[in-house]
Structures are given as structure tokens and as C-alpha cells.
């Protein structure tokens, strides 16, 4: 099992446990865990409705692609450790990470 933590938009932190071989993106796991993530574009790094801040463990995650960085760069509320959850794979590297849901930009 991989275990990581998610902080919702009200600051409540919960631990999420996922089997290692699941091959999903963090966005898909967040949606399946009933977090209010719209994911309008379905995971193509187009809408940024799954914008998260990685508060712990960013150095271990897969690196963002240019497409993801370009999208993050346009977001008014982006921070240094911003990622799009749809572009972060769920694997052992996520163990112990703390992900915080960002407010959705209009």
C-alpha cells in the first residue's frame, strides 16, 4: 500500500491509502475519494481544476512535463510547488507526501 495525505480546501488533512499497482493519476484517486475536484478536461492538463500544492515530498514525484508547466504558469494562484494532480502518477514515490487542494480559479 502507498499512503499519502490530502489537505482539503478547509485545511482538513486525511490519509489516503492506495494499492501500489493501481496505475492511476492523483486526480483520479482524488475524484474516487470524493474530493471536490472537477477535472473538467479529463486529465489532459488543460483546465487546471485539479491544481494542488505539494506541501511535502515534491522532490520524489515524477517531473512535470512542459505542457503541465505551461498550464501552471498561467494560473493566477500558482505557488512554487504547484502541480496538476492529473499529471502526477500514483506510485511508491508518493509515499508520505502531503498534497493540498488549491482553490479553483474562475
Amino acid at each position: 500500500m502507498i499512503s499519502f495525505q490530502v489537505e482539503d480546501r478547509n485545511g482538513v488533512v486525511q490519509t489516503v491509502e492506495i494499492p501500489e499497482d493501481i496505475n492511476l493519476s492523483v486526480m483520479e484517486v482524488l475524484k474516487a475519494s470524493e474530493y471536490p475536484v472537477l477535472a473538467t478536461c479529463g486529465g489532459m492538463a488543460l483546465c487546471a481544476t485539479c491544481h494542488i500544492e505539494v506541501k511535502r515530498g515534491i522532490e520524489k514525484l515524477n517531473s512535470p512535463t512542459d505542457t503541465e508547466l505551461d498550464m501552471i504558469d498561467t494560473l493566477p494562484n500558482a505557488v512554487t510547488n504547484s502541480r496538476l494532480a492529473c499529471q502526477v502518477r500514483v506510485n511508491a514515490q508518493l509515499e508520505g507526501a502531503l498534497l493540498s487542494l488549491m482553490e479553483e480559479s474562475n
Partner: protein
Amino acid sequence: MITTDIGIIGAGPVGLFAVFEAGLLKMRCHLIDVLPQVGGQLSEIYPKKPIYDIPGFPEVKAQELVENLMKQIEPFKPTFSLGERVDSLMRNEDGTFVLTTSDQTEIHCKVVVIAGGLGCFEPRKPELQNLDRFEGKGIVYMVKDPDAFRNKKLVIAGGGDSALDWTIYLAEIAEKVTLIHRNESFRGAPDSAEKVHALAQAGKIDLVLSSNLLAVQGNGVLKSVSYADKEKQLREIETDYLIPLFGLSPKLGPIADWGLSLDKSAINVNTFDYSTNVEGIFAIGDINTYPGKLKLILSGFHEGALMAQSAFKFVYPDQKLSFKYTTVNGVNAF
């Protein structure tokens, strides 16, 4: 005024295939799309990407699928209003509809099918208090007429290509341009970034890096913009205009005001025929939602087929529909 049986909002793959299913039942279609070409996301965003889950095509490039769909619906002579957004929907006393577009094209139809995909891409807004108070009164999200900024003070916010390009362009026209960007560097086109740096060095623009917008102030109209600089110090700049250029984000747009039952940014439908809560309006493809919804092109194709069966009773209220296979009946062109 264009008169047709079905007005389809959205000319993506699902909207296009709906023309085929409607055509088999002798219903004519007119499609409207905000994009200047057909194909929706497939043509606009990933024309060269292969798609692997279209039945019968082990692999097909997105643009090829669009071209094939156009060929498939050709017998049914669909008509198009491209580069236009449907801005309003009006219901006539006889139950028919009039759709009006951003170019004032009017489409009179018996059935409306919303196949709008992700919706319209609209400018993304920064989260600032009182932002809406100054929209159109100093805050603009799009540069439509550059001349409106002649001899004015402008603050442009953002770091993408459009922020860079407009900074370069407006530097010549405006009295003063300040570009505020969150990062220390730009990810936009390197030549544009170089030009912006050169303009800043020549004193032609003010370049404010590693800074975030914090607030907008004014008295009826925008007067100043505040931001936190590199050292997190609060700064204020007097300005006539703030132009936030933070890219586009998909939104439902005017469709959200038509009295349809919505769930977040999707339209609730009945899976019997993908009808909405408003009689005569259907929603198919990525824009609808229902228990178990999968945002797949193939799901949208299926939804279009079922929609057409129910749309028939609005177009031909006095006729009985008898379902026929294309293998038996062929495709009878209009």
C-alpha cells in the same frame, strides 16, 4: 434566419455524429461552434494524437477521425455557423426554439442538442476581492481594440505568450505598461521574453517579476493595483487598466443560464434518451452527466443515437418511428 430541425451546439465528434443519427431519421441539422473549424478538442487541441478506443479503428489520428465523420455525415447536408458562440436561447409559443449567436445569427429549430464538450474557453480570472466591481471599468480580460489603450497607464498580469505579446505591442501605444509576473523568468516564446527584457532595460516598460497581484482599488473605476513584491512588501501602482492574462479555462458559458439542471459544470440528463429537464433540449457527450458517466467519444456516439430516437417525436409529431438498420435500409441522402 436559418431554419432546421435540430440545432446542435458544438461541432466536436459527438455533435458531428449526431447529424448522422438524425439524418437516418430524416432530420436536418445545423451546427454552431465557437471554434473556427469543426472537430472540437480533436482538431483544436490534439489533431495529431492517435486515439485507440474508437470501435473498428485500432488507431486513428484525431484529425482523421474528424475528417471521416465529416464524410460520414455528408449525405445529410449539415449546415454550420463556425466561430460563433450561442449566446441565447428563446422558446416560441409552439415549443420550437430560436438560438442567437454572438454574430446575431438566428437559428430556428424544433430540437436543441447541446454537444458542447468542455464548454467555451473563457479567460481565467485572478482571485482578488472586488474584481467584479471593476470588470469593464478598468479591468479587461481581452484586448479587442488596442487603440482603446492609447496614452493610458496599463498593468498587464501574467507570464504566458499572450501577456508577453501584448506587453510588446501595447508598449508602443500606451503611456505606461507595467508587466507583473509571478516568476523570475518566462515560459513563453524565448524571442518574446527577450524583447520584453530589452524593453524593460530601455525603460520603455516596467517589469515586475516574482510578484503577485493582491488587490484592486478604485472609486467606481479602477485607480490602482496592489501587489506583493519579491521581498513580500506591499506595493501599489496607479493605473487606468488592469489586463489579467492568465490563459483560458473551460466554462459552460451562457448555457448555464437556460434553466437546465446542472451538476457542477455538467448538464444532468435522463439516460433513457439523454434529455435534459427542459423539454426539447438534449445534452450529449462530455458536457452531460449521469450515474456511471464516462467521458469517452464512443459514449457520446451512443448518446447521440438514443437522442435522435426521442428527438424524432418533436420533429415529426404525427409520424410513428420504426427503427431500421443501415444494413437493411442503407443511407438515404437528402
